[in-house]
């Protein structure tokens, strides 16, 4: 009878460290775990006692990849707590920089972390030697998205110009127009990206689950909206805990989440499944080329959904730039504290899925309580449910292939363990 023992310590090509453990005895799956060890939650402690205007700068440092996402969710939580209305220009600029971060993160994941599996190499380094044109294309797209972020938020890495109520730095019309030209030119690289993805042998695996994301009536939602699920539930943002229902499991100290089923999925595929109708026509065409139409239930295709979102974000960035140029850029004053605190929830659908920040601010403007629920924690239970479903289907294959499939499955989620654990240096025996 079949015995399989998969033990991947420190799964590579994910952000941070996590373990995969699969144990099959006599054909029966006796153990199937995705292990992440979480240090105490330093995040809340770091913002408690700090003035409201520092929170976005502190939390943007939690993650080098999702700096803008954390900053935006943080600002929305603060603004909702303090009753701050932001201008249409601020909303447009935030969407623009957010698109930059989505492209930046997705191109890194699709090309540098996922593609090596399909090319049969261990990392992007041999890929750079065997297929330099592929890696150089990825770096071109990454440079464009990094420059887009820097143009809006003032810096390549951390969005220093993003503040409560608005921005402290504004792009010029000439910068916007030059960026538009570069975005249009990038369509060729995006087309090549979709053509490449269409040739990849995506594993054949289906498991239906509940998909959770932000949703808006008038656009493909990344910032604000309501929380929606493919099981038909919707919640206003202050009710986010009705979706996340955090709980602990013994083998992993990262908190988990579940809603209507044993698990749910967040991220690009969840957004695609909930908000397909609002994708740009070019992004829909890209989806069609990949054979993707909602509801897609193959988790491996989260990477496909990421590429589709890259197309959408490039096109929507061009639209936003046109609108900003038509309106003209105005240097708007920032919010001034009114001596009245409150509680607020901010939510963004960051590259890896829906993110919640929740602050309680006192009448002195000091943060007295904070909660942050990140996407990777919400996905942990679903990753494990996928593993349990996939293992029995591939038990007849060589152990190395089973191991690789499990690694690819986890990597498809683009887990950011460094963020979910709040700690990089986790050692396992």
């Amino acid at each position, binding site marked *: 009878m079949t015995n399989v023992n998969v033990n991947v310590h420190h799964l590579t090509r994910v952000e941070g460290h996590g373990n995969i453990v699969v144990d099959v005895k006599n054909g029966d799956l006796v153990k199937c775990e995705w292990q992440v060890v979480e240090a105490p939650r330093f995040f809340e402690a770091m913002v408690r006692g700090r003035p409201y205007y520092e929170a976005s700068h502190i939390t943007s440092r939690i993650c080098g990849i999702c*700096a803008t996402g954390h900053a935006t969710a943080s600002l929305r939580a603060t603004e909702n707590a303090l009753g701050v209305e932001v201008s249409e220009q601020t909303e447009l600029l935030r969407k623009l920089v957010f698109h930059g971060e989505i492209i930046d993160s997705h191109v890194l994941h699709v090309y540098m972390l996922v593609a090596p599996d399909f090319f049969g190499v261990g990392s992007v380094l041999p890929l750079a030697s065997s297929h330099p044109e592929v890696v150089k294309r990825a770096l071109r797209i990454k440079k464009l998205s990094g420059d887009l972020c820097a143009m809006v938020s003032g810096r390549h890495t951390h969005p220093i110009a993003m503040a409560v109520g608005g921005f402290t730095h504004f792009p010029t019309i000439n910068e916007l127009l030059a960026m538009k030209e570069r975005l249009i030119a990038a369509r060729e690289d995006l087309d090549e990206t979709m053509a490449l993805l269409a040739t990849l042998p995506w594993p054949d695996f289906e498991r239906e689950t509940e998909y959770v994301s932000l949703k808006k009536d008038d656009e493909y939602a990344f910032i604000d909206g309501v929380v929606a699920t493919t099981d038909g539930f919707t919640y206003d943002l202050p009710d986010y805990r009705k979706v996340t229902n955090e709980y602990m499991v013994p083998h992993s100290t990262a908190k988990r989440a579940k809603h209507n089923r044993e698990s749910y999925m967040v991220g690009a595929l969840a957004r695609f499944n909930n908000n397909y109708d609002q994708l740009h026509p070019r992004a829909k065409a890209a989806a069609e080329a990949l054979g993707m139409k909602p509801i897609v239930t193959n988790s491996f295709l989260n990477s496909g959904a990421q590429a589709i979102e890259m197309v959408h974000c490039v096109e929507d960035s061009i639209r936003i730039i046109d609108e900003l140029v038509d309106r003209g850029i105005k240097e708007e004053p920032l919010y001034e504290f009114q001596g009245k605190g409150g509680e607020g929830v901010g939510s963004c659908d960051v590259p890896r899925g829906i993110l919640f920040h929740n602050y309680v601010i006192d009448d002195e403007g000091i943060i007295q309580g904070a909660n942050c629920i990140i996407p990777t924690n919400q996905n942990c239970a679903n990753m494990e449910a996928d593993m349990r479903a996939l293992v029995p289907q591939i038990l007849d294959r060589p152990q190395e292939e089973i191991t690789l499939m499990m690694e690819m499955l986890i990597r498809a989620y683009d887990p950011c363990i460094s963020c979910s654990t709040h700690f990089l240096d986790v050692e396992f025996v």
Partner: protein
Amino acid sequence: MTTGDVHRAPLATLVIGLGNPLRGDDGVGVRAIELLAALTLPPDVEVTDGGTQGLGIVNLMEGRRRVIVVDAADVGKPPGHFSRFALHETHLLDDSGLCADDSGLNTRGKTNLSIHAAGLREALLLAHALKMLPENVIIFGVQPNSLEWETGLSPAVEEGLPDLVAAMLAEVRDSVQQHGAPSAKS
């Protein structure tokens, strides 16, 4: 310290501060470049906060003649002290990895530099593989005392900052003397 116009050609020399200011002394690189950027620098020098990004560093390095990196690193010295290395003096591009020993040196005389933000090594390896490495890559590694989740530097690292920034300033000025003004040659 902004990036300026993102559409123009990159300046010849880039100074990158790496690390996470939420991780105690890991923020020393970011603090050092903040201090450096406040000084009068040669016109072809750009200073940037690289934070904890990984492969994005390749994009920042592209088209430069010299890149100077400052980061917390195990250089086998007391906290707050630093070492300066040219890339070829380190094992960052070797397969052998980053194991530090007590002396900070191995038998072949190269430095076993242990850099906290491992993304730098991946970025250097990728740039190397794509033949995109700048002519000169200089690394200032600063010995940290604590990498716990906290803001602010430990006193020893704080005290070491003036010497570190002075050395970096000398380095960027030296780069101008050695390499002249930026030209079309890359």
